[in-house]
């Protein structure tokens, strides 16, 4: 009985893994195929389409997306840290209210948010902020709930006895924040920023409302391109984006050490 269950378990696992990874493999194969027909024979594969990515047509939107995602992850990370500090560390009386307010954009569909931001900018006479500033603003609104939530969780898990221990050793408030709190919640901050980066980098629904005419982020460029043709260059863009995101996660992980709990963690 147990062996049958174990076998079923492994079969289910394998199916789930296949479901997640097979489409990716198909995309990789497509990006290497000579024409829009997907070729599975490695002997006929070509890197031609990747070469085509190295043109202003794709590099421009890519850099815009990277700039926005980086800026947004820094801003959301910092705002999220401040919010988490007040809500989860100082536990100020209005903590619940503040948290609900910051999380409230989650309840609004992105399309609605996009329209609302555009209407706001035009009615407030801030139409010139469309483009990069508007995109950054919108993406911060989109990602702040996630960043705050992740950082606040790290702060909630912070062992307050460590704070008291530091205090008894003569550490004032800023010293405790700098030497004890920040190093211990750093993994939370960086995972929040990573998540923010990915959300911003991949975003379409908000971005379409806020790009200036002639300006385009990478995902929007892909969507637009798809309307005209379905060449393997799209698959190449996707694979390249995927590799880029994975690299970003890796770099953030190295900086922030989400897995620092291996020799850290207070319990």
């Amino acid at each position: 009985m147990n062996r049958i269950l174990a076998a079923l378990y492994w079969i289910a696992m394998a199916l789930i893994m296949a479901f997640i990874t097979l489409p990716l493999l198909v995309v990789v194969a497509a990006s290497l195929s000579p024409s829009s027909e997907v070729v599975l024979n490695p002997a006929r594969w070509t890197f031609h389409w990747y070469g085509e990515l190295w043109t202003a047509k794709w590099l421009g939107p890519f850099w815009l997306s990277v700039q926005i995602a980086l800026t947004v992850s820094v801003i959301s990370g910092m705002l999220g840290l401040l919010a988490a500090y007040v809500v989860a560390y100082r536990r100020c009386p209005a903590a619940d209210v503040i948290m609900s307010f910051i999380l409230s954009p989650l309840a609004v569909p992105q399309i609605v948010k996009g329209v609302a931001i555009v209407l706001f900018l035009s009615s407030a006479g801030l139409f010139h902020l469309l483009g990069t500033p508007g995109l950054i603003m919108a993406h911060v609104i989109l990602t702040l709930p996630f960043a705050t939530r992740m950082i606040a969780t790290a702060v909630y898990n912070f062992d307050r006895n460590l704070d008291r221990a530091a205090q008894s050793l003569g550490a004032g408030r800023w010293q405790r924040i700098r030497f004890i709190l920040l190093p211990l919640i750093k993994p939370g901050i960086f995972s929040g920023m990573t998540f923010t980066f990915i959300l911003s980098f991949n975003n379409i629904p908000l971005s379409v409302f806020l790009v200036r005419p002639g300006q385009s982020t990478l995902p929007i460029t892909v969507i637009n391109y798809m309307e005209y043709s379905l060449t393997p260059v799209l698959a190449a863009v996707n694979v390249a984006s995927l590799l880029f995101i994975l690299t970003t996660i890796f770099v953030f992980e190295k900086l922030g050490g989400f897995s620092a709990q291996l020799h850290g963690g207070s319990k």
Partner: protein
Amino acid sequence: MSTPDIELVSVTKLYGDTLVVDTIDITIPRGEFVSILGPSGCGKTTTLNMIAGFQEPTSGELRIRGADQQGVPPEKRNIGLVFQNYALFPHMTVAQNIAFGLKMKKAGRAETEAAVRSALKSVHLDGLQDRYPKELSGGQQQRTALARAIAPRPSVLLLDEPLSNLDLKLREAMRVELKEIQRELEMTFVYVTHDQEEAMAMSDRIVVMSRGVVAQEGDPTSIYNRPRTSFVADFIGKSNILPISAVTRGEAGPQLVLPGGVVLAIDTAEPVEGMRFCCIRPEDVRIRGLDGGPSGQAANLVDGRVAKIVNLGAHLDVWVDVAEGVTLKALLRTADAAGMQPGASITLAIAPEAIRTLAE
């Protein structure tokens, strides 16, 4: 006499409407090992937190080295603290943990290194300075926490049940070591515990707390030998606590009449006015003719029947029914009581000096 390190004068702490600490007065002289002992909920941890500065007294005055501490934050009190769960900084090595207090004091590099080295030495952790807390055993974490607290040389060290997470053997070894470290550093230790054995083993003085008040205060011997209330008699060591039905005058002096008509002569110096209970330590309950106990005329002789025997190894706990509803517990050496069986009739011998009267 120099200024005491810590003085609590009529200190009261309320949480909402709950009185947690009720008008206590405690004086802790410099260089002493003082234990605050009591069951959970007696207010001992609150008292410690008030001394450390994590909580402010609702009323009363708290002085450290003569200075009123109202509004002084914990980081300005120069008091070391050892936590029950150690609270080591997980992202720092043992050496960095120990150096933390000196770093906050902006001590020089040479001074810090010397202090870390000497702290490591006092707690016997030499060679482990580059480990992370995660890589240490419970006992080593405990030592690190202690080293971290003593390294900046605070004038007072507060210890909050620091041994309760260790196993029994280690706990007993650490008791001896803690006491040695305290004596060596000549630091004032305030040790909060619910473990009376720990308090007895290490303290110069014990403050017994119960329901927010100080039940009794004194050196371990006097607290053990002269408990003032049945709570203290029961909490410190083991005791036979019996209600007093009446007090009469015998030829030799006062006598206590217990329920069931048991009559015990007591020492003439023992107060009887208003006393409602008496207590007898199990080791003072001897058996006539068995263990060379007090056999003279002076001893109270009480006939009884053995009800229950529990073997503790070197000793036996023996319950003896001496009258209807009156049972005395005796602690006998196993060798002395060999062959004793439940149901056996025996005569107990209790010296009058071993009987204490208690008001409540």
